[in-house]
């Protein structure tokens, strides 16, 4: 039908996208307004760019490369606990960075479980620190996310094709070549781009596990420019590099970015007739066990480490919990307020390229955004008065690309099915959202809300310039406990944070699906 005539929320959607671009560009402008222009990039910064691109590319390749066999195994096996495992796939991604790093170190560190086991049988120690450590951590964060993306791809292969494959008695290899490889060609490039962009802005993970200044990323160089050299021009220049790298990659790969997995469909494997051989079953079992172990062991260590610290947590931690929940609630509201109209706008366009705009928020250095806005806002109003809205906005910007990604495909589907009917009924504006879009997109809205809520729960409040001393969030309180030598109490707070983040995610995700109609 004549889609050019009928668009959902074109003004609001374009407005939301425009707002996002404006937020980033105005911040950049704010920084540039105060910058003195000096020299171009120095050799150390070129080295940082090289390192950043290299680690991000390798992390993306490995995350996707390893996720393929794991997702494949998960797609063709059913077993007890599969549903829980699929849910937990979201956990590493929404974990606060520092908690995840300590979880990884408890397993892979010098005195971690693996080295403990190796030492017990007389084998030499393996070190997590170095380039491979950075990649390992990034794979830990992103492999589960990619597995979920790819699982969605497998789910998208029509079951008739597997029936045909069974009829023709295709071997697993032949099934891969005829059915799975074409699907991967569609989904893998987008997943690669997404992980690449996520890893571009890494800082603390890269430095801590990278073992030293060799592992200097662009984000660390930006931090240095702001706080060590106070060279705003250089900070802005480096931010531009980051945006160009991320934006270029995103634009290039955006049309391939696959749908994020939502809903019960994932929990129900397709009926498969291939890959029934004993060896293949064993291999799949090993792959799933390895994947689950890689995912679960660090999480278990966070839990074990935290349990003993729970009793040592001061009451203020619970107060901070309330603040964090409030920030999360506000971020979720804001994310949806931006993502829904954007998704409506994008879905009623024939090309989805504008979705790349959403990635801007993910690629822009939060420190630069914070500083830019501080420069702009400070002459007008006290920044700490805006602590809550600014924190919520920055969190929403981070979550937006995922939310849009989740919402666009079902929105497109819905418009295809029901746009003519809504048109003849004269449904527009709020009634259209109230009676058709919101109820039909409930599972995806729930998933997007959960992701954004959990992401903002774990945010350390990078926008220190806007910090409101009266309103301490849970991650900041955890960090303060660490800063005050109270590592056990901090581990307790980390556990609380893990439970709450997963709880927020679970409640939103479940709430979206609860009572939802087919």
């Amino acid at each position: 039908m004549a889609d050019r005539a009928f668009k959902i929320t074109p003004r609001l959607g374009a407005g939301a996208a425009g707002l996002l671009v404006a937020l980033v560009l105005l911040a950049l402008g704010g920084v540039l307004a105060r910058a003195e222009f000096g020299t171009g990039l120095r050799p150390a910064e070129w080295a940082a760019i090289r390192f950043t691109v290299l680690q991000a590319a390798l992390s993306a390749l490995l995350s996707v490369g390893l996720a393929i066999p794991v997702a494949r195994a998960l797609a063709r096996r059913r077993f007890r606990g599969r549903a829980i495992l699929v849910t937990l796939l979201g956990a590493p991604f929404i974990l606060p960075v520092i908690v995840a790093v300590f979880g990884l170190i408890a397993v892979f560190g010098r005195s971690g479980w693996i080295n403990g086991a190796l030492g017990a049988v007389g084998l030499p120690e393996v070190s997590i620190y170095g380039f491979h450590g950075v990649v390992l951590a990034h794979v830990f964060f992103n492999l589960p996310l990619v597995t979920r993306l790819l699982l969605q791809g497998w789910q998208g292969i029509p079951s008739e094709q597997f029936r045909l494959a069974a009829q023709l008695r295709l071997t697993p290899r032949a099934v891969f070549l005829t059915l799975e490889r074409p699907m991967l060609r569609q989904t893998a490039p987008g997943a690669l781009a997404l992980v690449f962009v996520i890893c571009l802005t890494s800082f603390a993970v890269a430095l801590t596990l990278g073992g030293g200044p060799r592992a200097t990323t662009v984000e660390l160089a930006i931090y240095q420019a702001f706080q060590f050299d106070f060279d705003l021009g250089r900070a802005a220049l480096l931010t531009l590099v980051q945006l160009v790298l991320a934006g270029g990659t995103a634009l290039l790969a955006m049309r391939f970015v696959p749908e994020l997995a939502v809903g019960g469909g994932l929990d129900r494997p397709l009926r498969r007739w291939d890959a029934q051989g004993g060896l293949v079953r064993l291999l799949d079992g090993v792959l799933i066990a390895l994947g689950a172990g890689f995912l679960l062991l660090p999480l278990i260590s966070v839990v074990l480490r935290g349990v003993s610290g729970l009793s040592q947590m001061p009451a203020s931690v619970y107060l901070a919990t309330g603040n964090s929940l409030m920030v999360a609630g506000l971020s979720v509201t804001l994310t949806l307020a931006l993502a829904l109209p954007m998704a409506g706008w994008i879905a009623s366009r024939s090309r989805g390229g504008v979705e790349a705009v959403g990635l801007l928020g993910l690629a822009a250095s939060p420190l630069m955004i914070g500083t830019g806005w501080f420069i702009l806002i400070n002459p007008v109003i006290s920044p700490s008065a805006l602590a809550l809205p600014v924190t919520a906005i920055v969190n929403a910007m981070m979550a937006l690309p995922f939310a849009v990604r989740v919402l666009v495909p079902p929105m497109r589907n819905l418009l295809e099915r029901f746009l003519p009917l809504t048109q003849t009924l004269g449904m527009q504006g709020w009634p259209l959202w109230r009676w058709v879009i919101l109820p039909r997109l409930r599972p995806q809205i729930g998933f997007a809300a959960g992701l954004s809520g959990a992401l903002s729960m774990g945010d350390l409040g990078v926008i220190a310039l806007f910090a409101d001393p009266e309103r301490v969030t849970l991650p900041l309180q955890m960090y303060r406990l660490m800063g005050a030598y109270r590592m056990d109490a901090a581990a307790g707070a980390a556990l609380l944070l893990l439970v709450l983040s997963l709880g927020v995610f679970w409640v939103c995700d479940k709430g979206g699906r609860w009572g939802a109609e087919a």
Partner: protein
Amino acid sequence: MKYLAFAAATMTATTALAEGPELVVYTYDSFVSEWGPGPAIEAAFEAECACDLNFVGMGDGAALLARLRLEGARSDADVVLGLDTSLIAAAKETGLFAPTAVRADYRLPITWEDEVFVPYDWGYFAFVHDAGLEAPANFKALGESDLKIVIQDPRSSTPGLGLLMWVKAAYGDDAPVIWDGLADNIVTVTKGWSEAYGLFLEGEADMVLSYTTSPAYHLIAEEDDSKSAALFDEGHYMQIEVLGKLAGTDQGALADQFMEFMVSDAAQSVLPTTNWMYPAVIPDAGLPKGFETLVVPEKALLVPAADVPAIRDEALAEWLTALSR
């Protein structure tokens, strides 16, 4: 207060009137946390000043200075507390600080002669380790040993920068040789002190860069005497934390009163067991029990504040080169 804060002040006019004028003090985050000195100092000062002392905490000392530079003369702050000797030159260069007449009977290993900044506490950087460890006696011995250490990145952390200056102050042009020796001892470099100390407590390294006063925390707060600081015979670099009054303050008298208060016994007696540093002036009751167990370096190292900027950039380049190999 600046007129910008006036709007906020009028909204809480009744309380503000009841509490008198407001003094805004910028400081680093851990100072204001409930385990830091902030709460006790605020209560004690408000009891005698008939004012409202408002601590605004943000990041660390470097973040403080960056914020001040961004705000310039319009800053709401009356006093900035938490810069250290490495940042003094850069802070003075902004021209935002006013000279002070506050003097006290400082018990620092050096003579304090700064016209602008007032020291409130200080410490020696040191490598902290488990008490049972046979610790090396200097950087050379550390470099030759198999011991593993965790340090902080000088670009993002005050202790990290302190270590850079320490090696430079002790070895001058030979600093690169020392860093070459240390390169294979360094497990990793972290963003801040908390991550490094956390890694050390998790058993990731034998020693961590911290302060000679760190064992005091474990001893006094946790009754745990298992941590020691290694004494290095080339001397230990000092960190002296200071506060200063902003030239643009409209609470000049109150700011002076607060600076005076920070070196008075009421504040000085709070600092050792909240900030876990040596007080700049010995409190009437002496140092808390437990501090006498701490190692005391025979030689205190400090690069004069004015020389820091030039040395800092050179030392950073050497550090990056040595550790990037």
